[in-house]
């Protein structure tokens, strides 16, 4: 069943690239492919977080706000004089705390994940806006000239952009592969992965089998929020300047879209690491294709929606075929 899902999304991706290359002679230039890959890497990282929660039967709507908070918090800490190399782990730690809060509310207080993270979406966006309005690397360099070298190093190591701001290599894509590799290993080759899948489909079965369901769930939320907030750091390093009121806004839905396209059923208990990568790769190519075709970019949301709907239809078809039963 998973094989069909992965093959399906792979075929979609191949078709999209083919259409991209056919659309414009400049489309297959390395610089363009690097730009696309860089976006794919970024989306892959947040899709990974969303996918982990979806396949274990959870959801996190606060991701976009946490991404925004990550960018603002990163800038805020540096403006307060904390060295960039120290600021990154501090921000990620903050993300882990957010995940812990989400996870505890869902498991121990037994609130619905949808509501808990919906509240989180507002709360963390508010926090970000309280910490700063518009943020930028330039201002940090002016306030703390001693950080300029470290910032540039981070920018080069995590994003692949040189001093002039040109993309030399899509490091974010490599980062994504690295992170999916680690989580994919746990997902598919360890007992923890089985627990996530089991919980996603039937948490009572997991509980009665003696699995520590709550702990496993909390770990999922911690990973998701940590990845989101780390993505916020990447976002600031990549774009140099952002505004706290819209940085990352709506990205939770794009992450969920990527996860679902990649074969994570919203019913829980389904999903593969390779599918997550492929699912996250679709939307950046689609955006790029629309740009090259010269199509009005206002059409993008509609196309994303239709793509997801189509993916869902195909997926439902596959599921029914395999279930071979009920109407």
């Amino acid at each position, binding site marked *: 069943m998973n094989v069909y899902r992965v093959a399906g999304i792979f075929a979609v991706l191949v078709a999209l690239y083919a259409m991209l290359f056919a659309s414009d002679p400049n489309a297959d230039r390395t610089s363009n492919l690097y730009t696309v890959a860089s976006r794919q890497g970024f989306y892959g990282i947040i899709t990974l977080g969303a996918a982990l929660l979806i396949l274990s039967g959870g959801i996190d709507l606060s991701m976009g706000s946490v991404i925004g908070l990550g960018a603002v918090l990163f800038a805020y800490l540096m403006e307060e004089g904390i060295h960039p190399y120290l600021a990154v782990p501090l921000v990620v730690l903050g993300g882990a705390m957010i995940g812990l809060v989400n996870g505890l509310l869902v498991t121990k207080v037994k609130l619905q994940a949808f509501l808990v993270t919906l509240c989180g979406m507002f709360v963390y966006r508010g926090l970000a806006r309280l910490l700063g309005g518009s943020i930028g690397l330039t201002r940090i360099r002016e306030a703390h000239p001693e950080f300029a070298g470290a910032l540039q190093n981070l920018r080069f190591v995590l994003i692949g952009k040189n001093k002039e701001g040109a993309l030399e290599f899509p490091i974010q894509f490599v980062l994504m592969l690295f992170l999916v590799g680690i989580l994919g290993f746990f997902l598919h080759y*360890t007992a923890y*992965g089985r627990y996530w*899948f089991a919980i996603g489909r039937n948490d009572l079965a997991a509980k*009665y*089998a003696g699995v520590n369901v709550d702990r496993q769930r909390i770990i999922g939320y911690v990973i998701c929020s940590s990845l989101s907030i780390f993505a916020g750091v990447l976002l600031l390093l990549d774009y140099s300047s952002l505004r706290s009121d819209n940085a990352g806004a709506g990205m939770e839905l794009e992450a969920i879209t990527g996860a679902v396209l990649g074969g994570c059923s919203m019913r829980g*208990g389904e999903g593969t690491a390779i599918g997550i990568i492929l699912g996250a790769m679709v939307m950046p190519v689609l955006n790029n294709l629309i740009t090259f075709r010269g199509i009005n970019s206002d059409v993008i949301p509609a196309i994303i929606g239709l793509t997801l709907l189509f993916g869902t239809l195909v997926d439902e078809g596959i599921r029914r075929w395999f279930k071979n039963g009920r109407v």
Partner: protein
Amino acid sequence: MTPRLEIRNARKQFPGVLALDGVSLQLGVGEIVAVIGENGAGKSTLMKILAGIYSPDEGELLCEGQPVRFDGPADAMAASIHLIHQELNLAENLSVSDNIFLGRELTSLGAIRFRNGRAMIAESERLLGLVGLPPSAARRRVEELPPGEKQLVEIARAIGGNARVLIFDEPTSSLTQNETDRLFQTIDGLKAAGVSMLYISHRLAEVKRCADRVVVLRDGKNAGELAKAEISHDAMVRLMVGRDMTTYYPRTERTAGPKKPVLEVRNLQFRMGGIRRATEGITFEIRAGEILGMSGLVGAGRTELAEAIFGVRPITGGELLLEGQPFRVNRPRDAIALGVLLVPEDRRAHGLILEETIGFNLSLPNLDRLQGLLGVNRRVERELHTNTMAKLRVKAPSAAKVVGLLSGGNQQKVVYGKWLAREPKVLILDEPTRGVDVGAKAEIYALIDDLANRGVAIWMISSDMEELLGMSDRVLVMNEGRIAGELSRERLTEEAVMTLATGGTLP
């Protein structure tokens, strides 16, 4: 000899209900003890305490003579006590082998817990052999297996966890006859290997078949015990209800000659779902004032047939006649408007809105009749609630009580109540007393018989052989999407039904 498991004087209070009021139970080595009682007698609570899911408010638990305390199912499993759940408790998206080892995977690399898949599959294959499943099942996804095999997988999992006590909670409720036989073979094998078992079931014939001893609970207390030699249907029922049930099946002989058919089904074809698109044409009729029983194994298509005629499932061919007039149903409201009403098999999913009150559920299908000038006419609605509850003897303080909090029997009465106000012409009963305790069963049977005497055509789909034989005027048996045969009252025996249901032919 020390009993393997013993509980003394267990008490358990839930909000508003004293579920257990000083129950004691002993289970010896290699012994099979059946625990029976009406719904709400405390069987499930007792089993959940033994399996570590609940902890008792008072009472002592002894394992091999040693006092123990369970703080969760994991503790009970560590003490080799496994519960085989009523609702199958497997992660259906995982493989059989993954489920057998769920929670106790064979792993390496320490805290990383790298799964040793090959070793788990090898061990799974051995365990599956013990319960009579082929080794190839180890790699299959659980959702591909039929219900009976899933149950065997659960047993294999328990054996793999070194179970010395197995607790079965209504193990056969979703099994076919073949699967049930296979389960009993496995149980016999386990008993010979010294495994002790507790067996909860409403099906007294099964209890008689396998139990060494029967413990009867009533209202959270021990009501009595029967040794192997004393086990009989009557004795069990007497202890369960605390009185002799003389009119268990109140069927009256309806002597009047053949009446006119109410519902005629001619060559009906319908969607079974999935790859099996449609069935052979099905033809039968139900006459006014008769109880037509319908038997067949799970998957024979009985429920699907009922759903098709009630408008839930698409009809692809054939003809339906009601009192001689052809009619069509595309959705349940068509059938309801004509007086063809269904009491569905799965009460919790299709029969009731559990979170709502009795009154809400009774009004829902009758709102068209309750209309007043400004929305629902409250006075008429109240009358409907009071009358229905009185007629059906629903045990609840008022219609404002939430349905989900009632016992199974009372819930089922509310499902019947939904239709009574509509003067049914054809009443389709799919498993009319599933999960209903003995006392309420008798009341429901009396109601069904009364409706038939008043001229309602009753179509009763049932997997409960005693109920089928006890209530039906005539029985149709289905097998793999077709009518395998008809049995008149005179020819109606359990053997005849089973022969037809399993695809055989009668002499």
